[in-house]
């Protein structure tokens, strides 16, 4: 059974139920039940009309739950009969769901969890597993999030930037366990790009595709990180790169530049270089300047210093770095790299060791420790 197809129908079914007047939280529960039922039944008995099947089952589950509720609360007027089959799902329903699940009243972690469940059709267990928290914790997070957004009307247009931030978070979390969050983020962003014509949605999709293309080359067989310059570029996924570049090239001429298009442009320039040495660093510096102008994010200036170091030499990179806040994460690692390029191996080794102490994840810590060790070994020769 194609679980991705099944999950891609989730927002449509949910949209139909909500449009029939079902409260969002109840509709979402009913759709989850229907998905579970589909996983059980479809392999032996695949439906001719999967969307119709899911809608019918979700509707019945809702009625069952509502009747149980009604009996308890003696509110018999709530559900009397099945309504007319609703209108076909529209792209607007799906879009409104994205807005709702990324609503600004939700915390980032709640928005991520709700989006993965209500739009992505993942189970609570899968989401919990992916984020390494107990299932009960994730269930609680999702039900609180549903309560928060339940009272909100679905028909108000949302801000697409909030949706993009949530999808970016999902993508950046990488993956663990049996759910590939990066691939799921790409699927959801692709689906969003179908429902709304917006250059930044295209920009984010291009950015994800271009980074995803490098995934196989990003880690060595022993699990250690491989920096961009040392990656085996023949292992990059050329189809993913071609798609990302094509999407970006269609978005840029519309002249509504945003941070995701600019980041994608930088990723595209890396993807375009047959070898690390042939990278067009001058253009990359220009894109970082654009990004700095667009976002004012200090991390951009840190990354820019690396690019300047490649374009104009390590001394220029160190001068650019001098203007950056040294409390930023990875500042010390960047300083170490630029000093190494400048030939100051003892300073670089000391800074790499210091950067390893400050690393926020094990893979980076191991990588930075290895860099320090490599330089110290060189110096002993």
């Amino acid at each position, binding site marked *: 059974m194609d679980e991705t197809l099944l999950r891609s129908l989730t927002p449509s079914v949910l949209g139909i139920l909500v449009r029939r007047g079902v409260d969002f939280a109840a509709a979402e529960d009913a759709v989850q039940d229907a998905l579970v039922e589909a996983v059980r039944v479809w392999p032996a008995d695949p439906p001719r009309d999967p969307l119709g099947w899911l809608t019918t089952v979700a509707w019945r589950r809702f009625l069952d739950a509502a009747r149980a509720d009604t009996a308890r609360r003696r509110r018999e007027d709530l559900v009397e009969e099945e309504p007319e089959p609703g209108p076909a799902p529209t792209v607007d329903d799906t879009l409104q769901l994205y807005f709702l699940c990324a609503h600004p009243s939700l915390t980032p972690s709640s928005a991520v969890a709700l989006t993965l469940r209500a739009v992505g059709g993942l189970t609570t267990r899968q989401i919990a597993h992916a984020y390494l928290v107990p299932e009960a914790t994730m269930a609680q997070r999702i039900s609180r999030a549903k309560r928060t957004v339940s009272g909100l009307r679905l028909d108000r247009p949302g801000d697409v930037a909030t949706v993009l931030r949530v999808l970016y978070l999902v993508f950046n979390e990488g993956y663990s366990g049996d759910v590939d969050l990066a691939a799921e983020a790409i699927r959801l962003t692709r689906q969003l790009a179908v429902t709304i014509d917006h250059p930044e949605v295209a920009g984010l999709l291009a950015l994800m595709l271009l980074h995803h293309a490098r995934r196989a080359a990003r880690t060595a067989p*022993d699990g250690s990180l491989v920096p961009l310059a040392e990656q085996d570029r023949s292992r990059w996924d050329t189809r993913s790169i071609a798609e990302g570049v094509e999407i970006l090239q269609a978005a840029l001429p519309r002249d509504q530049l945003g941070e995701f298009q600019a980041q994608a442009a930088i990723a595209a320039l890396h993807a375009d270089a047959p070898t690390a040495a042939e990278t067009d660093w001058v253009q990359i510096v220009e894109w970082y300047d654009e990004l700095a102008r667009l976002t004012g994010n200090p991390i951009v200036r840190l990354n820019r210093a690396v690019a300047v170091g490649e374009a104009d030499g390590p001394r220029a990179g160190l001068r650019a770095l001098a203007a950056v806040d040294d409390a930023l994460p990875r500042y010390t690692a960047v300083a170490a790299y630029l000093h190494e390029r400048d030939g100051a191996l003892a300073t670089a080794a000391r800074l790499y*060791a210091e950067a390893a102490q400050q690393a926020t994840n094990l893979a980076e810590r*191991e990588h930075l420790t290895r860099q320090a060790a490599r330089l110290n070994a060189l110096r002993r020769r």
Partner: protein
Amino acid sequence: MAKYLLLKHYRGAPTAVNDVPMDQWTPAEISAHIQYMRDFAARLEGTGEFVDAQALAPEGTFVRYDGEGRPPVTDGPFVETKDLIAGWMVIDVDSHDRAVELAGELSAAPGAGGKSIHEWLELRPFLSEPPTITE
């Protein structure tokens, strides 16, 4: 079954036999060490004795309540803290002897010069649930 915590210290444990900072090892020695740790955890998963393993950043903050309506007081990080935990592994084993055996294996991880670090690990039993039958 009983759960045990294997604690690894940045500071505070007795000095290891082969005590060389990791950035003074060769890259190959680092790889061998990391591989040993991975294999160890994988083997424990295989035997059904692995529960959890986590590493901690070396810097933390002390926090305490400061009274109604006031923000918590924070202090540190203290560079001089005598006891600094680096990470842990939780195992679920049949006996204390088995826990000691496993801690010994973990401490044998290779370090500088390809020789075992002989690092001191702290082994702490979990306080468990009371048993149903007590008489």
